[in-house]
């Protein structure tokens, strides 16, 4: 394997992990509150589209972010209305959102911009661009640490750093606040919450809104930070990978981040190996490497992480017992 460039793989690991981290944290909030959220994928896609459109129209990435979050929260509320208020099947509601997102974003994109479902390419000023840390350029050639600083720590956009702040912040909210205590309780035994005089419905709605906000960040990152516009189906299954990471991490914030970084690393590695040959084997079809994250997910979920116990009330609409 000529020239295994660890630094550049790590740099792209970070870039590929960010949407996973935001999305998996989103799932963490709803699922810990007892609402399954298959629709993460769809919310990400909707918010990517909204962010791209708003950034193109206004030229401001911040308004793009705002639009991405707003749309994602609205979709979350739809999911909440179906599955919390009307006690519908949470999986069906989530799948419906995914289908709707895939179709509606492409159709609207085509109707508004006539570019085959894409949004027009964004200027740099309408995107979240890389932030270069002090002395990054000077340190770029000063050994491993310097290159690590310049390429892995520095040189990402603001959303990347927010993702890494969101991890401890989510932990703090879940484990150190009243809201977090109640949220974790409602995912385990909503009856305990109800008899304590707290509204199960309102609590679950707030959890889905948290998820909407985080998915908004994920979609915005895809459309106007990582790329320069919306492309049809650009979420490419990341919502599902995020769900796998969530289960893999047993619904805990810091392990969620680590799982997402692992999946991101595998993705980055697959990209890196494209067209390169493995010593002793020769050129390996790139599809093998692209399949790796999925294979690993199956293997890990099948037996290597022990029993992943989901929140006990997950997926079950709350009905007062008669």
């Amino acid at each position: 394997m000529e020239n295994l460039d660890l630094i550049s793989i790590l740099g792209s690991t970070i870039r590929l992990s960010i949407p996973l981290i935001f999305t998996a944290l989103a799932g963490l909030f709803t699922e810990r509150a007892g609402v399954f959220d298959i629709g993460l994928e769809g919310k990400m896609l909707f918010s990517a589209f909204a962010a791209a459109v708003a950034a193109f129209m206004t030229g401001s990435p911040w308004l793009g972010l705002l639009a991405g979050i707003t749309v994602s929260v609205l979709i979350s509320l739809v999911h909440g209305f179906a599955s919390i208020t009307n006690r519908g099947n949470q999986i069906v509601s989530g799948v419906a959102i995914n289908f709707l997102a895939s179709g509606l974003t492409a159709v609207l994109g085509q109707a508004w911009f006539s570019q085959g479902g894409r949004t027009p390419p964004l200027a740099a000023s309408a995107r979240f661009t890389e932030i270069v840390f002090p002395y990054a350029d000077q340190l770029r050639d000063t050994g491993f640490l310097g290159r690590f600083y310049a390429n892995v720590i520095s040189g990402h956009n603001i959303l990347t750093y927010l993702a890494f702040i969101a991890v401890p912040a989510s932990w703090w909210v879940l484990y150190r606040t009243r809201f977090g205590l109640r949220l974790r309780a409602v995912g385990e035994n909503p009856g305990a919450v109800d008899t304590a005089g707290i509204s199960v419905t309102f609590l679950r709605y707030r959890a889905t809104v948290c998820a909407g906000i985080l998915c908004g960040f994920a979609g915005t990152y895809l459309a106007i930070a990582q790329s320069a516009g919306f492309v049809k189906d650009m979420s490419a299954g990341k919502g599902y990978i995020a769900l796998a990471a969530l289960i893999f991490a047993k619904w805990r914030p810091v392990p969620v981040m680590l799982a997402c970084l692992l999946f991101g690393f595998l993705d980055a590695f697959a990209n890196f190996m494209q067209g390169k040959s493995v010593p002793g084997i020769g050129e390996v079809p790139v599809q093998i490497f692209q399949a790796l994250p999925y294979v690993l997910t199956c293997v890990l979920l099948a037996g290597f992480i022990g029993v992943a116990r989901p929140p006990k009330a997950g997926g079950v609409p709350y009905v007062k017992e008669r």
Partner: protein
Amino acid sequence: MSPTPTAAPAIELIGIDKKFGAVHANKNINLTVAKGSIHGIIGENGAGKSTLMSILYGFYHADAGSIRINGETTVIDDSQAAITAGIGMVHQHFMLVENFSVLENVILGVEGGALLGGGVSEARSALKRLEADYGLEVDPDAIIEELPVGLQQRVEILKALYRGAEILILDEPTGVLTPAEADHLFKILGVLRDQGKTIVLITHKLREIMAITDTVSVMRRGEMVATRRTTETTVEELAELMVGRRVLLHVEKGPAAPSDIVLSVRNLTVKDGRGVTMVDNVSFDVRAGEVVGIAGVAGNGQSELLEAITGIRKPTSGEILFHGKPVTGFDSARLRALGLGHIPEDRHHMGLVLGFEESENSVLGYHRDARYGRGPLLDLDACREDAKTKIEKYDIRPPNCRLKTANFSGGNQQKIVVAREIERDPALLVVGQPTRGVDIGAIEFIHRRLIAMRDAGKAVLLVSVELDEIRSLSDRILVMFAGHVVGEKTPDTGEQTLGLMMAGIAA
């Protein structure tokens, strides 16, 4: 106790009325409970006790009527309002978050601020105080699911007290406890009363009413039919008030005439889904013409034992013989064909499909039988005729075999299962919790049927957590604790002795 007559009563319910669709759960209920007393509410399943208390706790809204707490009219429209009014409730199914610590469960809903830090340490010292005042010891950092049920219940009581409850409602609190744990609970309730708390105890067990209450009210079919001072009433009077006629509290039966061994269990070991050994090297026989009862607190391996015998779960080791022939590992269909009847512990999960018509449930499991159809087709007329016969014979109400099973009451649902299994005339009848959640009338009926099976020379294996039931039906009693059979006793053995064995203290 002896509340001063001038003090306002702790609770006054005036004209409470509640309907659920066609079911009139509470009919114009009036109830007064004196401050500092223990008041029992007794009645059959479905008499409306739990509904009434749920209205008091703000879980349901009454259609009419009003509530006074300490003499003041109080509107209780949600649980928060009830808590504010000083009412705490210990539910039949604990309202605890199982993977939370005791402390986290106690502060849930009264965290004392948006951040947890301060409230937690405050709660910790408050728990210490409650522990000292009422003898309610429990480790605040223990995780709920690792605590025995008796302690989990204690956490429920602590939750209520931490919220400043002056009135404590307990809904069927002893259903999951051993007799010793129940006695301990009664002691705690006595201490709480002596410190001025008012306690309402909902139960269908007469023993508890006599043991602990000061006054008792009887509910029947949504009506409050009587209120008595406990010292001025008897078990017989209360039972009669509950059912509306005289009931036999003990099953009349002649001596058993055991003959050949029908079921033989040899060194049976069974693991549950988690891989935990639940039945450990158990051996026993059941003969034709006898009822063998297995007593024990729920969760000591009885369910897994039943599942292994009836072919639902494969044992890890050991042997099961039926009429002397090995049947270990046979599935339930094969066992049924050989003559095994099974009344499962949980009629909702195993015994019935609630969405089916009565006639469908009435043949379920035997639907391949030639008399219910040919080849892949069911003969619906034959099924319905058969169902009608059973309905008549077992007095299943309403007598409508086309009605959805979910619309029958608990007792009648159980009778559907009992009729189905007994009418097959099995050589061995395996029965789990035959009268759980069933009213007294149906209990009596089912008990008589089981004894009739025995007298007809069938072998009956009975598992129940109700000690009274085990003692009145069995000819021999095996006690299970932690997966072992810890002893065999005769049915005239005292409740206390059996209770100690069930708690693993004596053998």
